[in-house]
């Protein structure tokens, strides 16, 4: 029971656990020597601007390449479009959706990542609550095993699960991909939510129990709403993880159920002659994560930070 109270953690642990990791840090008091500070910060600014440009350039390159014709891409670099914007058109994108099965693959990506996210969050929330607040024999030992499973690499599951899915007819289906992702998303999800739920003040739960609320009621009416920040971070991280996955789907999906990443990967063999498909396809796969990134910046950063322990 002693572990239930909030503990003062060291900054490192706090950063990796569920606490906010803001992009914005509190402003520091200005330095005394204004002039040297100003000169110094001039050089610093120049360096940082350069770094930011270097970071943006590859992404800009992909975007501009995706808007140029196959012939333009073969003859010169995307940066010529900066001085000659007449090269740019949406033709690649319309062509992409008309044939090549990329549209279907995009839809498969949605069909894989949305259910996975819901299942991981739902199953992990139930388990996390039980591990934090319900008593059952072997609870802490089982929980430690779950935490230990956190670093089992996906690779080790590929072959055995492929055989297993083959036996029950799940191989090559969206459901199979989803199940695999859910299983490998659970250790981290349970770990994260159990820790977050454990910090709910004990008095609140006991009061709810006194009032005769069933555990299910307490879970759904009290714990879930209180756990919203952690659940949001987890959901965003999990969604992104699965949306961006290639390895799992490469094995478990067939040509009917393959997501965008796998469809694009199979185009890599002709790299150089099909930038008109690869560049817009890759950009298309980026759009959803980027929208999520800008829409839920704070949760996004927290989710990625927390999820990186995987």
């Amino acid at each position, binding site marked *: 029971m002693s572990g239930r109270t909030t503990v003062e953690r060291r900054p490192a642990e706090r950063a990796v656990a569920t606490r906010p990791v803001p992009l914005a840090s*509190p402003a520091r008091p200005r330095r005394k020597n204004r002039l040297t500070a100003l000169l110094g910060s001039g050089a*610093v600014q120049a360096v940082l601007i350069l770094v930011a440009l270097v970071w943006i350039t590859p992404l800009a*390159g992909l975007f501009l390449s995706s808007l140029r014709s196959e012939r333009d891409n073969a003859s010169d670099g995307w940066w010529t479009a900066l001085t000659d914007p007449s090269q740019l058109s949406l033709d690649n994108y319309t062509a992409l959706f008309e044939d090549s099965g990329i549209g279907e693959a995009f839809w498969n990506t949605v069909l894989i990542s949305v259910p996975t996210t819901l299942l991981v969050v739902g199953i992990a929330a139930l388990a996390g609550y039980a591990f934090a607040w319900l008593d059952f024999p072997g609870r802490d030992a089982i929980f*430690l095993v779950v935490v230990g499973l956190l670093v089992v690499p996906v690779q080790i599951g590929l*072959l055995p699960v492929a055989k297993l899915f083959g036996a029950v007819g799940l191989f090559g289906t969206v459901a199979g991909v989803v199940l695999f992702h859910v*299983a490998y998303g659970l250790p981290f999800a349970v770990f994260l939510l159990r820790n977050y739920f454990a910090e709910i003040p004990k008095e609140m739960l006991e009061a709810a129990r006194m009032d005769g609320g069933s*555990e299910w009621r307490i879970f759904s009416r009290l714990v879930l709403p209180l756990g919203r920040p952690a659940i949001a971070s987890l959901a965003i991280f999990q969604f992104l993880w699965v949306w961006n996955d*290639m390895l799992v789907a490469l094995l478990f999906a067939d040509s009917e159920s393959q997501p965008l990443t796998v469809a694009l990967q199979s185009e890599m063999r002709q790299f150089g002659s099909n930038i008109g498909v*690869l560049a817009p396809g890759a950009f298309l796969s980026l759009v959803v994560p980027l929208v999520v990134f800008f829409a839920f910046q704070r949760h996004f950063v927290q989710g990625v930070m927390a999820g990186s322990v995987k």
Partner: protein
Amino acid sequence: MADTLNARAPRARAPQTGAAPDPRRRAQRNKRRLAFLFVLPALLLLGALVVYPVVFSVGRSLFDASGEQFVGAANYTEIFQDPATLKAIRNSTIWVVVAPVLLTGLGLLLAVLTEKVRWATAFKLVLFLPMAVSFLAAGIIFRLAYEQDPDRGVINAAVVAVHDSFGDPAAYPTARAREDQGLDGAAGGPYTTTEALRPGGSVTLGFVGVAPDAMPSEARPAAVHKTGADEIGGVAYLDFAPGGGGTLGKVDAAEKGLPGMTVEAVRDGKVAASATTAADGSFRFEGLADGEYTVRLPASNFAAPYQGVNWLGPALVTPAIIGAYLWVWTGFAMVLIGAGLAAIPRDALEAARMDGATEGQIFRKITVPLLAPVLTVVFVTLVINVMKVFDLVYIIAPGPVQEEANVLATRMWLVSFGGGNDQGLGSALSVLLLLLVVPAMIFNVRRFRRSRS
């Protein structure tokens, strides 16, 4: 899910047959059952799809490719004998040593620097952006960027631009001299005048083979200037009049000079003077002693242009892919370290400043030690992630170079599913991968336990 739970929960409570007289014990047992129902879905999935596969893989790794013959540890010794797998181990080692160190260092540096500017948030946003991008997309992005042709790959375009800004770009790789018009030498240079010159003389050096769009924009119509008594002058020009006409070996009105050529006056095998041609192609050597000279155009004028670096060739493919990995993960390291930096008590730093410590001392003696836990977390996290890197290597390395770029995870994939078809060796590799992350697992679990107690 809610429905199944509601439906199941009462049933779990109902059958209390037999002797359970104590209502409190009964209630407790019910509670336990309920708790099991809460964790059951998670445990079922984890058991079937995570725990069982680990056991299966360990067992499978002790059998041969067909899965029928028990071979003991043979697959594990094979790992350290098969040259392709050894190469993967070597590459994985490079990855694990280089990438986390660079990322932690870069993250620390940028975190400290961003504290000094006001647009830190925007900067962090830009660097964090690649974390949203899939490795597949990052792979495509960098396949484009690493393209060898400097006209198409942005990185080589930058490399060539920097290279050429230091050395003189060879302006006329395709130029060659008109035959039998006074110049000796073969295509690619160097060229020397066949006849000797004395100060006061001048020479016309006619070339062909430069396409109109390859001519420098500053080129002007060729002109021959008068030379002084101690000077030798001349003009290097394109002996080709656009639209036809013109006389071979003579400077015609429509013909342009070749600016920027290096020209040397040679006497007795030694360079006596050198000059660079002007916009109209003219040059002159001043202050020459009397004697016989030849005029020479060194080969550097005609060298093939620098073509940049073969990033995705066998030699550089791993560093190149690590570069792409840095692009994705630097923002992560920076933001996490930045959060740690913000948590350092201000008064510790202020006190040190009061005592006259320099910024460098403060950084080394206070900031870094206080940040050590954060740096460790970043480092360990990166080691785990680097160990498992797959997509980037799989996507960026071109087919023929794949073997040179392989890491454990890609090798495991290729052995098991990508044509290798040796699931015994593949299982052994995946078990090795698991064993390598076990230290990180222990670190994680310990950290977790410490934070609980």
